[in-house]
């Protein structure tokens, strides 16, 4: 049981970080990015290709993170421009349709051109024992990186001027403009960061299981479920919901079965919408 819970925490941290990139973009720009998982996969494939080309793993990961950021920048500068100008339902709908299109295109291109490409980062060395449970080094590395990313995110939003500026836009965009904050520049920054986060999650994921060209949709679905449970626009919500759902996920795959697990996770999201629509730590509109 301890082993299952520890595995759940490892997975949950990644779920949480994955959701942060989705939830921030939604909070800031009203964009629900359905191509989010494809951003992660595209970055992972870039890392794999870079390693195929002979680059060291460290450098290749750097190139992959950069690629994720560029993907975000490109989305922000092109397709999302008209979305920012809309409000309400029209904004959500247009963002869903446009990003779904991007998801199809990326999926299509990757399965057509590089159907067999996948990223696996092998962290060598034997297992390390934690609470009497042998844990793979890859999982520990992944968790360490994810926790570090969360610490950096919390510090950024709590203690830096720029982080406060981003939060202020989520809370009241007009108020933010009145203190001299340019929402467009902040959105660009957050889109780039979300691309880098997606890439980081894909990289840490590949330390446990291969990230393939068809992994995109499941990344997006997990990110969406965690976001719904955690509350839109909340980093802390994503963190706790990620942990919770990660643990639920491993327990249910271990004791019930993998096929039912996704249904259980989706039920958790549905239940959240019914009982607490703003999510665990989200704010009611």
């Amino acid at each position, binding site marked *: 049981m301890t082993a299952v819970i520890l595995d759940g925490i490892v997975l949950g941290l990644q779920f949480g970080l994955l959701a942060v990139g989705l939830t921030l973009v939604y909070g800031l720009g009203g964009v629900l990015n359905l191509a989010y998982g494809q951003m992660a996969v595209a970055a992972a494939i870039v890392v794999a290709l870079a390693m195929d080309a002979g680059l060291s793993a460290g450098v290749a990961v750097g190139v992959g993170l950069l690629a994720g950021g560029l993907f975000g920048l490109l989305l922000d500068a092109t397709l999302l421009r008209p979305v920012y100008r809309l409000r309400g339902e029209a904004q959500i709908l247009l963002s869903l349709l446009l990003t779904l299109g991007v998801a199809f295109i990326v999926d299509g291109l990757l399965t057509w051109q590089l159907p067999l490409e996948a990223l696996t980062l092998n962290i060598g060395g034997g297992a390390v024992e934690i609470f009497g449970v042998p844990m793979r080094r890859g999982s520990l590395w992944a968790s360490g990186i994810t926790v570090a990313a969360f610490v950096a995110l919390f510090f950024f939003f709590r203690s830096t*001027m720029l982080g*406060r*500026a981003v*939060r*202020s836009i989520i*809370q*009241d965009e*007009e*108020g*933010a*403009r*009145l*203190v*001299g*904050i*340019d*929402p467009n520049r902040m959105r660009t920054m957050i889109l780039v960061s979300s691309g880098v986060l997606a890439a980081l999650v894909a990289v840490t994921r590949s330390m446990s299981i291969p990230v393939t060209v068809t992994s995109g949709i499941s990344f997006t679905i997990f990110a969406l479920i965690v976001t719904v449970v955690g509350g839109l626009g909340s980093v802390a919500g994503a963190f706790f919901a990620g942990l919770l759902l990660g643990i639920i996920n491993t327990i249910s795959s271990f004791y019930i079965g993998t096929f039912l697990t996704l249904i259980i996770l989706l039920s958790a999201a549905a239940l959240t919408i019914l009982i607490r629509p703003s999510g665990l730590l989200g*704010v009611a509109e």
Partner: protein
Amino acid sequence: MLEIKAFSAGYQGNDVVHDVSFHVETGEAVMIIGSNGSGKTTLFRAMCGLLGASSGEVLFNRDDLAGMPAQRIVRLGMGFVPAERHLFPRMTVQEHLSLGAYPKRPDPETMSIVLDLFPRLAERRRQRAGTMSGGEQQMLAVGRALMSRPRLLVLDEPTTGLAPKLAVEAYEALGVLRDQGLTLLVAEQQVPLAMAFSDRGYVLENGQIQIQGTSEELAKNPEVRRAYLGVM
């Protein structure tokens, strides 16, 4: 300091404000009075870059602000406090005041001026804006705007939602700022309060300036007395 020339603005091609011209000199306190729906809010929002202007000029010192977005206008030294305040509900007083100075670090001297003016804010530095009373929120909105050290502070109906006693206190605070030499432009429905506070004023009705003059002149004007001061 501020000169508005033949300014028109509105929503989606329907102008609410037509061909308005007025000016504010350095050190003055100027009011724009008018009833609900007269176009005061539209005029201010367009002037401050929250709403597109359709024609005319907004000259602030040497810059033409027409068509400039709000975030640039603030940095040029024109602060705006909207009637709905637009605070950040989940941020503390302290965070609002720091953000007011954005993108610079908050200046301790300005901070102490603001906290001296509104001692309530000093007591509640760690309180979140969403949990504060209307009067405190109004103080915070003004305080946040002051943190950018504006040369001109524009306020849209600063007494919105305030009990009469708090409305009087709000104008007392604005009076202190005026006496310290800050240039102020206020839109107000509560005309007696604004009149006692300002040097000059304009009456805006149906999106046009109908009457203008010093506050004393306006106080004697029979139309103003009938429409805004409740004198038959």
